[in-house]
């Protein structure tokens, strides 16, 4: 059970989070349920092709570590775009 949960968490990190951050960085107008579906749709499409492209560049097979690294890379790029765009808010 723990293994399944762990794998699902990884799947969320690898497929959902990059898609979610791409949406947040690229599509401004989305409400919640659509965002989540779209996030997953984008993640499962874009992460595999990016991993394959990078694996070919690095002359290595696609492995779990590479998959995590690519997902993290996409997440970081999108986070940087988001942070650059959005100033921090305060209540004073």
């Amino acid at each position: 059970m723990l293994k399944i949960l762990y794998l699902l968490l990884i799947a969320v990190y690898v497929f959902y989070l990059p898609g979610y951050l791409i949406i947040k960085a690229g599509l401004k107008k989305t409400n919640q349920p659509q965002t989540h579906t779209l996030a997953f749709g984008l993640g499962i499409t874009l992460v595999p092709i990016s991993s394959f492209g990078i694996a070919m560049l690095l002359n290595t097979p696609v492995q779990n570590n590479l998959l995590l690294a690519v997902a993290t890379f996409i997440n970081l790029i999108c986070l940087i775009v988001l942070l650059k765009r959005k100033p921090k808010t305060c209540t004073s």
Partner: protein
Amino acid sequence: MGRCCDGKDAYKPITKTRYLLGLLIFRLMHLQARLFMFFRHTFIKKYPDYNALSRFHRTYFNDTLKEIKEQKGLILKDSPSLPVNKFKAFALLAILIFIFFNYLFRFEGPASGYWDTYITEPSLFIANTHIDFVTKDGEKLYSYSLPGKLPDNLINKDADGISSKDQRLGGAIIFTPWYLLFNIFGFRFFFAISGVLIAAFAFLISQLLFKNFYLSAFTAIIAALNSYILSINNLNPNILGLMIISIILYLLLEDTPNGLIIGLVYGALGGIRNESILFLPAIIYKLFISSPKKGREITLFFLGSLITIAPILYWNKYAFGNPFMHPTQFHSLGGFRPVFEHNFLFWKFDFNGMLNWPFYHKIIRTPFFCFPTFLLLPLTLASSLGIIIFSLIFTGAINLFKRNRQLFIFLMLWFLPMYLLLSVMENWSNLKMTFLLMLFSPLIIFIAAGLKGLFSKETLKSNLAGIILLSIAVFILVKTLAFSDFEVDQRWYERFPRAVEGKNISYIGDDLRTKKEDPAELLAQKKILTQGNLLPRLNKTDIDLQQKIKIIKQESNQKEITIVDIWKYIYEK
């Protein structure tokens, strides 16, 4: 607060969820500080006055929390609600869960036919997993080792050569991460997820255009649970294609489409189905009419497409010597693959496929199929959906033509080029019939538009009359076609000599046959297609649940598989 908003965001309303999340993060930060102090004091280096430090921290935390809670002027608003109420949300969830388990349990496993073998094989090689190749009788073939790097893993001279054969590599690429995470079960798991996403995006597209829950839920069911799609139980690039097309259509139908994101997804689709180049006019048209900055969005669209198609172009160059070559046209794939002369007006060309009229001098049909493809496609659709829902496509198209001309033009630009391409293709097979799914999304929108006409009092009568009249017309047409007879394409027997009586094995669709076309089988097929069923056809499928659960358990621990080298049974003389 290094980069503050200078107070301009102060007293703007925030959602309750966000406020509670902020409080949670605040508490967690203090808990973290407290835990750090505790562990440092206990295990690393003792603080001189730990109790006083703890007291100070607790007081500081409590005071700050009190201050936050007493903060005046905070405007809390409810979180954005779902577009539907709770009951509807649960109903939708139940539909999606049903679709997930339906797809999960009816999946027959990877590498059980032709197309899926050439998804599974490269997918495992991309992940650097060794495959044991065998003959149909289980005899071991090839002794080889993987070089352990890409793209070298994908072409092995000591094994069966180019691992994706004449299939596109995109499908294998999409499945690889699922295999890596969930072993062989990953193929089944992602097959089920594809079904869920097809339904979810059909729902979202319909909701976006027609804003009616029941209509959208029905559209989702039609998209993912129609009898045609339910007959596909293997890995199929056209199921992936339908899923990705749905994502692209949803992104395009938004108020202001984002060219870059659409381009990125479109490039990925191009790697799975090269034919998706035919959707380009529709996409450009939609970006042109919807984007305030047309030139920018269209440029970004091409840039995005280029980024995600680049790995595929590189692979094509590496494997076939030309980045733009369609894998089926690569001359050095093993086996007997003759070319046939075709002509169109004054243009003559050789092609290793078999095209129908107007590229051939007469209208023909592929053996084992009772109609040419241009009739098979609509007849299969009408037979699967039933004539009433099939007629809704036409009433929906008329409704959109009258009320939303731009959307109508967009959908026709999407549908027609692909239909025209498929309609002249022969050398047909049950697998190729799944190309129908590439046409599915605009048709689903037309069906939803047809249904929408029944929801309004103003249009109810005219739409109902239209559906009845069209249903009668389609019914008569379908029944008339039962009397038609088309000549068999003799080129097919030339290309697949094993199909000629006296030879041992021939190939058609996704199974291997040892006989010539059977007239009784053909008649049965014609009977089904020209039955003229008004309601959707229901396929009875017997699933042994216990057996499936056992297989799933086994797949989730299974890393390697044995694959039948199916190519040699198809193309070798």
